[in-house]
Every structure is written in structure tokens, then in C-alpha cells.
């Protein structure tokens, strides 16, 4: 523990009043930051200073602050969530930075994610993709016993690998094309792998990918930046899987 050591950092932060404002970068200084501060706690400190100075604090989305709700969304030095492997920006800790560092903080940038204010973007397009088919059409009640269909561990594990997506949108933010293929691929794959989802697999992949395009997301060009940005390490194999499901759907 070395709480006594503190850092001073220069922050260059995207500020934008509202959706129609042009927006620009502003420079702030973060003082008395320890290595145990999380990135968002560091921003909390800066905001406290801003409020004392009578200025509008930096607004950013956050909620659980334990890396699972998917609400936090900041591009730090060009990397969604700051670029630490399998880490959301709320779990990024300041020990990854050095005293005197300059840090650029920007919102997710993608056509499908219009900026609402400062670092907050509108990600409802991701909800629309799920609404297009990211479910099994089972009814509440009247379903079979949980053990009625056996799902061997490797299959369940594979589905779980895909299901870990937190829907933060980092894949879109990291993709030079602003594509949501990893997000969509993960959900399509999860339900295509499990027997419960197979009945609707063809319909699902067509509806979800078409909705993705309608929402303004770009196409996949296999850069795999999405996988690098994903805080849950969702693998691009699920995009391949979705492509396969798409091809199957053509012949279904």
C-alpha cells in the first residue's frame, strides 16, 4: 500500500452540452489521485473541484461500478474502456497511469450512438437489435423441466461465453466502421448454440442483422478491434458463428 504517493494528471475531456451542440475538448487537472482510485473515482474528484468552482461537472454514464452493468462508456486515450484487457472503465484503476500523464477522454463515437451530453451516448440501438429477436419466444409458465433437454457442459459453457456480453457498446466504439457485429453475434450465437433457441435461429439472425443495419451500424471488415475493446473478452468466433447462421438461414 502506498496511499501517500499521489499523482497529478492532465485530462483532455470531450464536452458537449447536448446532442445539437458541436462540442469541444476542455483541459482539466486531476490532483491528489492515488493508485487505488478507480478511473471513475478520479473523475468524481475532478467533478467535485468543478462544482466548488461553480462549473458544470463532466457527465458520464456509470452505475454498478463493478464491471457488470455495462453502463460506463468512455474512450480513454483512443481505447474504449482504456484498453486494459477484459476491464470496463469503472474497473480501470489509476495504478495503470503515471504521475504527469495526459489522458484524453472521449465518448463512444459511432453513427448509431448519438451523443446526448459530454461522455454520454444514446445506445438504444442495441436494445432495438435485441428486440428484433434476441430471445426465445417462450411464454411465462408452461415450460418444460429444466433437465428435460440435456445440454452437456461444453455446450453450456460455449453459450455462456457468448452470453457474458454486458451490452456496453465498446465493440461498436472500437470498430472503425461502428459495427455492432460482435454484440449481435454474441446474442445470435448464445441462442443458436442452445437447443432452446434453435427453432427460431433462422428468423432471429435475419431480423437482428437487418435491424443492426437499419440502426446505422457499419459492416464488419474483420479488424477484430471489437474483440480487443470488449471488457468481457467476447471472441470474434461468435461473429463467424453468426455468419454461418446467416448462410444457413439463406437455405432454411
Amino acid at each position, binding site marked *: 500500500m502506498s496511499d501517500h504517493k499521489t499523482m497529478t494528471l492532465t485530462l483532455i475531456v470531450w464536452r458537449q452540452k447536448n446532442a445539437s451542440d458541436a462540442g469541444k475538448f476542455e483541459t482539466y487537472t486531476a490532483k491528489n489521485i492515488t493508485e487505488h482510485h478507480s478511473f471513475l473515482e478520479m473523475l468524481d474528484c475532478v467533478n467535485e473541484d468543478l462544482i466548488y468552482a461553480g462549473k458544470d461537472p463532466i457527465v458520464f*454514464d456509470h*452505475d454498478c461500478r463493478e464491471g457488470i452493468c455495462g453502463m460506463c462508456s468512455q474512450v480513454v486515450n483512443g481505447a474504449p474502456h482504456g484498453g486494459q484487457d477484459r476491464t470496463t472503465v469503472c474497473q480501470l484503476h489509476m495504478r495503470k497511469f503515471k504521475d504527469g500523464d495526459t489522458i484524453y477522454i472521449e465518448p463512444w463515437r459511432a453513427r448509431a450512438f448519438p451523443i446526448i451530453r459530454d461522455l454520454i451516448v444514446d445506445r*438504444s440501438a442495441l436494445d432495438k437489435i435485441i428486440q428484433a429477436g434476441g430471445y426465445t419466444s417462450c411464454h411465462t409458465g408452461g415450460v418444460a423441466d429444466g433437465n428435460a433437454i440435456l445440454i452437456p457442459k461444453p455446450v453450456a459453457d460455449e453459450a455462456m461465453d457468448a452470453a457474458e456480453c454486458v451490452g456496453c457498446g465498446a465493440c461498436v466504439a472500437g470498430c472503425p466502421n461502428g459495427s455492432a457485429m460482435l454484440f449481435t453475434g454474441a446474442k445470435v450465437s448464445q441462442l443458436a448454440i442452445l437447443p*432452446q433457441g434453435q427453432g427460431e435461429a433462422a428468423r432471429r439472425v435475419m431480423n437482428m442483422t437487418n435491424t443492426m443495419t437499419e440502426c446505422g451500424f457499419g459492416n464488419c471488415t474483420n479488424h477484430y478491434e471489437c474483440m480487443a475493446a470488449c471488457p468481457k473478452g467476447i471472441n470474434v468466433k461468435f461473429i463467424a458463428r453468426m455468419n454461418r447462421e446467416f448462410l444457413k438461414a439463406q437455405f432454411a
Partner: protein
Amino acid sequence: MILDGKCPTGPIEQTWDKHRFDLKLVNPANKRKYNVIVVGTGLAGGAAAASLGELGYNVQAFCYQDSPRRAHSIAAQGGINAAKNYPNDGDSIYRLFYDTIKGGDFRAREADVWRLAQVSNNIIDQCVAQGVPFGRDYAGYLDNRSFGGAQVSRTFFARGQTGQQLLLGAYSALSRQIKLGSVKMYDRREMLDLVVVDGVARGITVRNLVTGAMESYAADAVCLCTGGYVNVFYLSTNAMGCSVTANWKAHKKGAYFANPCYTQIHPTCIPQAGDYQSKLTLMSESLRNDGRVWVPKKKEDCGKHPNEIAEDDRDYYLERKYPSYGNLAPRDIASRAAKEQCDDGRGVGPGGRGVYLDFADSIKRLGEDTIRERYGNLFEMYEKITDENGYKRPMRMYPAPHYSMGGLWVDYNLMSNIPGLFVLGEANFSVHGANRLGASALMQGLADGYFVIPYTIGGYLATVKPGQVKTDHAEFKKCEADVKAEQDKLLGINGNKTVFEFMREVGGLMWENCGMARTKESLETNLKKIPALREEFWKNVKVTGSGAELNQQLENAGRTADFLEFSELLCRDALHRNESCGGHFRSEYQDAGEAQRDDVNFCYVGAWEYKGDNKEPELHKEPLKFDNVHLAIRSYK
């Protein structure tokens, strides 16, 4: 006033089935004429909105996050209980019922808990059908793990992210209904008032968090699924946005608040590192399956590297004190035991506030790979936060506020004392008594949402005419104006202290004087200090910006204002309950460290009625009767 929970009578095994038959039904063709508002989209809210939409009601669902998928149910790690008895280890509906009543220290209603245990099995089936990837064995069967407070393995799990997977299941069902048009989703909306007309809940007032606009929504029934209030302690495992606001506003409109002093302190959380800290991170209770909890026997060893402390110099205090449950003692007991060790000066880490959770034995027995397979994501999370490797040195843990058993009072139908106002999940008080067992919160949320409210709301709606009050009613205008006025007041103070400072202060008072252990003196201190702090807040808080824009400070200021009122009620409830039970531990009432219940005087639900600003609330009692479980001293020794 003596409250009536309207529980069905007769043999407990038949209560729910009989009640379901007795409930009135709404004709399928008439359902679409009824509007239902669901506030909150966690397990309870998401499941309720999806199920009610599917039944044909016109549902409007609200959440303060940007998507219904983000509710804090998502953070539950360990699992969900069900009485499936798949492992053939002696589980049954009756045993789950019994464990839950006993775990709750005999302060919950029997009929409600029975119903919960009964529908628990349906929940697992429902989630499997939705595509929730529960852990399974190589043959393909559902796997189980054990959890605190139970001697059977009845917990179903999806790695360390069970809450996430269950919530995504409910979210997917909800998404399907949104697509079908039966549910209209309103995100980034915060409920700031309940609209009550002639004593009946008729709608809500919400603030559009993006534009700042006040919006009114009318309905024939309102379901609050707005979670718990342990952010009243400032540092807790709850999400930053979790608040008591929706419940408190409903309380101020007449809904009784039951047992607010029953708060759960989770034993295994990552200890606080500094004052700037914004939240505490929970590490699943399932870790206690394979981790052993200890502190040094000698105070002088506390500063040493844990691996240098000899086996004989370690005090495995849970195993010592509770030999039959050992490290799997229930949460309230494990938390208090940790506090005792630290109070005794044998805590480890910063400020001496921590105990070790040691995996060395399990790693020796099972291998690091098995441990990684079981808890890998938790070890990763621990390392990200503390920079320490849990495989190589014991983790440091300390209890943290985690869950509120108390909540708005509801009857067996989950309806509050205000007709038309239903309360589901953590927001109500109904099934966990004074302490909740691990893996039971997910069970309750989904039980209420999928399998209780779809029946009981029909019983109410069948008795009312749809669409009687619209948003053009004067009461809606008044509520909007009131909320607006309070906001303008907050914005106009322009004092010297930020919202966070006040929240930190009230949270500090609550944790210090009303946390894991409470005394008459500490509570009376709070009852003096909190009103003074509240007064200071309304004179000296500084909120920048305006109300007509996205303004997070304003949102937090409103939530803090409510916590400043609610915290007083919590202390008052704790002060009146002259006994120790479950999560409520009054130091005066103990038997060598064990909670001492007073069944003669306190075997009741304490439900508080709001009587106006700065007026003493009135206590109403609902006596608890135990016909199927013998009231006993809760022992895990």
C-alpha cells in the same frame, strides 16, 4: 392499527393454489383496456412487465438507466435457489420454506415464504427455456452449489454472473413484448412521485433525465420494483443510482414502510481503500464454499504477510464458533463475527478492517485450475481492484451493506396499503424476514415478477373500472408542480457543500451508529444528528446547472434529500425494536455475541405511516403467526 396481510388460511401446502383459484380473473378481451405501470426493470420489474404484457395488459415500464438490461440485479454473482432436489440430498419445498423462515430469524410471513419456495422450481424451468446458460455437468444436467445458511446444494448458477444471466433472460422476454407492442419502455426516466387520487394509486410523475422535462403517466395499477435502499450507508455494494426515492415518495403518499431496520451486511466484500471510494465491491458468498476465513490469533501478527503466519497462529473463527456450518454460516452471523475480530484488534489491511479468505487448502486439495474454473472471474476482479493475487495470498474481506430486507409493506397479493400500488422484489418487505439467505434475492425477484403478480394483479384489476383517471386530472398537475418546486429549491440554494459530501456524511453516521451493531445511544445520536444534517443540506447544498437538461448532480441531490429523511425512519425503527434479530443487531440484546430475539414483544412486522414533514411517523403492527415452523432460537453451531 393492526395490519392484516390477508394471507390465505388452511394447510400451508394448499394456500397458494387455493388463493390462485379464489382470485378473480380479468376477461382476456378486457385486459388490454387496463394500463399497468412498472417502475424498475430488474428481475422483479423486468419479469413483471414481460409477463403482464404477455397476458395482454397495456404495460408502461420505466427505468433510470439507459436500458432495462442494466438494473442492479445484474450484479448478483452466486446463484439462485430452488427446491428441485436434483442432487438427491434431501431438499424439498418444505425445507426451502423452513430454511428461509429460520434464516430470516422468524420475522417473515409463513404463507409468503411458502409460496416463494413453491414457485422456485418454476423459475429454473422458465429461465432454462429463455436460454439462460446455467452451469451443467458433462452429461448435460443442471449443476448445483451450496450457499450459506443451508445444508443442501440447491443453488443454480451461471458462472459468477447468475444475476446477469437471469436479468438478461427477463430483459429478453421484456424485449420481445416491447417489439410486440404490449410493453412501452421508457428509459432514462426517474420516478419522483406517486399520484394518488381518492386514496387509490393512479399513476406516477417522472423526470426525463435527458431533457429534464416532468412527465405524467396514468394507469390502473402501479408496480414498484425499485430495489433496495442500502445506499443510505453511502458505501455499499449497490449501484450508484440505487436509491430509496421511489419507495420514499410512495411512503410520503401513504404507503407504509415495513421493517426498515432490517438491512443486510454482506460478509465478503473488498475492504475500503480510501475516503474517495465511491462503492464497495462484493465477492460472491459462494467463495466461502472453498475459502476459509481467518484472522491472526495475535494482534502483533496483523501487519505480517499472511503466508508468514504459522497455522497455529491463525484463528479460523467461523469454524471454531459454528462447527456445523463453519465458513458457510449465514450472512448476518458471518458479518458480525468479522466485525468482532476486527474490533478485537485482530483485523488486517488498511485500518485493521479486514479478515482473510484463504484458498490455499482448496488449491492444495483441488488444484488451482478447479478453483479458477469455479471463481476465476472473482479472482480477476479482486486483483483488478486490490492489485493482489488471490491464488497466491489470502484475499482480504470486510462486510459491507448489501441488501435491504425491509421495504414497503404489502399484503399477500403484493399490494401495499394504497389500493392499486403493488410492490415487488427487494422493494417490498415480504419474505426475507430480518435476514436474507444467499441466492434468495434472485429467487424472490423472479417469483414476484413471473409467478405472483400476474395472478394477484388480476384479482385487483377485476374489481376496478379501467381508465378512470387520466393525466389531465388536477392531481397529476399538482404532483408535477410539487416535484418541480422541490427541484427549483435544490437548484436555488447554491451553498458550499456538494451533494456527495452530504451523502458521505449521512452514510457515515448510518454505518457508524446504525450499521452492523446498534445501541440505544448510537441510534439516539443519529436521531439528533440526521435532522440537523438535513437542515444543513437544505441551506448549504450546491447543485450546479439547471433542471431543464441532463443534470446528474440534481438527480443525486434529490436522492440524497430522500435518504436524509429515510435514514431517520430507519434509525427510529431500529430504536423501537428492542431485540436483536437477523440483520438488526442491538448490542444490548445479545447472548455472548449471539442475537437475542424477543418473540413475546416483537414477533410482528413494524410498518410505519408517514405523518408529515418533521412529524413522528406512526407505527402499525402486523403480528406474525407461526403455525408450521416452531419458533426457535436460531442456531448454526
